[in-house]
């Protein structure tokens, strides 16, 4: 019934498409009620709703990032570029995300998982910047569709065996290796893990600011969420393939971090850093210990805020100097010092500096990975080192140095933009205490 109420609420919000002020107000009020009154986890399996702490965190994150992405998209409204269609796509995406995070039915989860592709495809195709957005949106669509077809087949097979498509029917561990890969591959590509990651940099570079924010902030977490939900069912097979998954995660994360160091596009750099962070999530989930899965969840939530904020910052720079090239964007500290402050805060958060939750998540995963195998110290240490390296590279390249002539006319950060960035950073820090309840 909660899902039905939320669906009706989303339909009601469709009438507010032209009144963006009311729309964002409703979204922020919904986030407030979600944060404060959705803490009752005793609903169990009733009417397709299953809530636990992970659902609570991800639904709150979805609502908040959707509100912020609409606030960041005012240039679409002022340039009269079909803003109502854009907001309707955002609301549809929000509905699909909330239902996918809160449903307990496997088939409903799959349908919503696939449905989130439609709005993001249309956003990239419709509001992207370069002609390459056509190929980028096709990469996004076909990578995810191809990988998730085995998931549908796996769910239908589970239905034929267990006579139910509910998460509670996944309680008996299955040791079928083929079924394991059929269920897991969709989420690995969605995360994305290194070998199935090619769609992400393309999609992020070609997407509009809001598209990048929702993609990095929430859509990648669908992959991690799916892995965690299906984990108890495939534990027996996971013990067989955990070495492979941890290896792909560790080596892929290191390779993605090294690739970050030679990027010339800011958005592409942040996209590859997302791949490195999600590699840690894969490692955490594959290790299948309590603390490693907790660390994976914490990194997912922290990355949702941090990456979304970084994409907002890149979008703000693009609005002013019409380029995302690291070579051309230089010396921002001398023309926009308030933006430099935000670049600094988000860069250090991305490299997991204290007191951010990113550090907490990384420490949990480092602890569990070293407990699992000592050799992983080399890989996670290298990953952490390069995280610092590419974030410093991004910050120093864009902020320091002599600014080019194209950067001399630089509007100071407006109140709206400060609001968006504060709304990323403050909940990010406040969530630190909330995430310590991950063990409940």
């Amino acid at each position, binding site marked *: 019934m909660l899902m039905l109420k939320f669906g009706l609420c989303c339909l009601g919000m469709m009438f507010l498409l032209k009144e963006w*002020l009311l729309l*964002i*107000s409703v979204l*922020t*009020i919904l*986030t*407030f009620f979600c*944060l*404060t009154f959705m*803490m*009752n*986890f005793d609903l169990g399996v009733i009417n397709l709703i299953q809530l636990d*702490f992970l659902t609570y965190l991800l639904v709150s994150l979805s609502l*908040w990032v959707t*509100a912020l992405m609409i*606030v960041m998209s*005012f240039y679409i409204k*002022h340039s009269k570029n079909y803003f109502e269609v854009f907001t309707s796509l955002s609301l549809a995406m929000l509905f699909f995300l909330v239902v996918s995070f809160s449903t307990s039915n496997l088939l409903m989860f799959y349908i919503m998982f696939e449905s989130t592709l439609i709005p993001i495809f249309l956003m990239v195709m419709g509001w992207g910047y370069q002609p390459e957005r056509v190929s980028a949106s096709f990469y996004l669509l076909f990578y995810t569709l191809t990988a998730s077809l085995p998931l549908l087949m796996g769910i239908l097979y589970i239905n034929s065996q267990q006579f139910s498509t509910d998460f509670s029917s996944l309680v008996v561990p299955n040791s079928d290796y083929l079924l394991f890969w059929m269920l897991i591959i969709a989420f690995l590509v969605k995360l994305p893990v290194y070998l199935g990651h090619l769609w992400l940099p393309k999609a992020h570079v070609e997407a509009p600011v809001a598209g990048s924010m929702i993609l990095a902030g929430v859509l990648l977490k669908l992959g991690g969420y799916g892995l965690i939900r299906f984990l108890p069912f495939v534990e027996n097979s996971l013990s067989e393939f955990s070495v492979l998954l941890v290896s792909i995660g560790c080596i892929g994360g290191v390779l993605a971090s090294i690739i970050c160091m030679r990027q010339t596009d800011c958005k592409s750099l942040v996209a590859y850093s997302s791949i490195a962070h999600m590699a840690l999530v894969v490692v955490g989930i594959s290790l299948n210990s309590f603390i490693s899965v907790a660390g994976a969840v914490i990194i997912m939530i922290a990355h949702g805020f941090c990456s979304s904020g970084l994409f907002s910052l890149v979008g703000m720079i693009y609005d002013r100097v019409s380029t995302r090239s690291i070579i051309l964007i230089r010396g921002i500290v001398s023309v926009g010092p308030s933006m430099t402050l935000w670049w600094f805060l988000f860069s250090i958060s991305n490299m997991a500096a204290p007191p951010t939750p990113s550090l907490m998540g990384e420490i949990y995963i480092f602890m569990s990975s070293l407990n699992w195998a000592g050799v992983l110290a080399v890989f996670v240490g290298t990953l952490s080192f390069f995280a610092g390296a590419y974030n410093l590279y991004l910050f120093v390249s864009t902020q320091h140095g002599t600014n080019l002539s194209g950067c001399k006319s630089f509007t100071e950060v*407006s*109140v*709206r*933009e400060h*609001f968006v960035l*504060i*709304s990323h950073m*403050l*909940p990010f820090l*406040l969530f630190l*205490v*909330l995430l310590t*309840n991950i063990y*409940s």
Partner: protein
Amino acid sequence: MAFIVRQSGRLVGTFNNYLQPAHIGKRCISTSKKNDETAVVTEKIPSHKATQNSHDVNTTAAATAAKKKWMSYGFHPTDQYEDVASAHVFSFLGVTLCMVLGSLVYYYGPDRTLKDWAQREAYLLVREREANGLPLLDPNYVEESKIVLPSEEELGDFEIII
């Protein structure tokens, strides 16, 4: 806090006239009347409030000049009222409601996840077990006396895998 500081500053300013000696507080500045000065016409400072005579070109221009001092908050490039209203709405809903009140309700609200209850219960159990001389953590999750195993006749040919 800021309100208290401002009000105290105003009160001190009010009482300064009574606290200080009169000859220190008063400084008279006067000049003799100048005979060879030209008359100085002082212009009335234009008010941003709407004047009664809307057909007066000078007052309209003055009001427009005063209104031009507005700088956009970033929510609307031209409409001042929508821009200011948006800034106020987002500041209230986003910061005050969601972050401040949301944090308050979360931290001071009831213990919905039963985390504090679990910690209290654990301490009570530890005290009880120490008083009874039992180990704090029993290696058996369930007491052996409470486990009822099926008999050999009931099991039959059922294969038991350990």
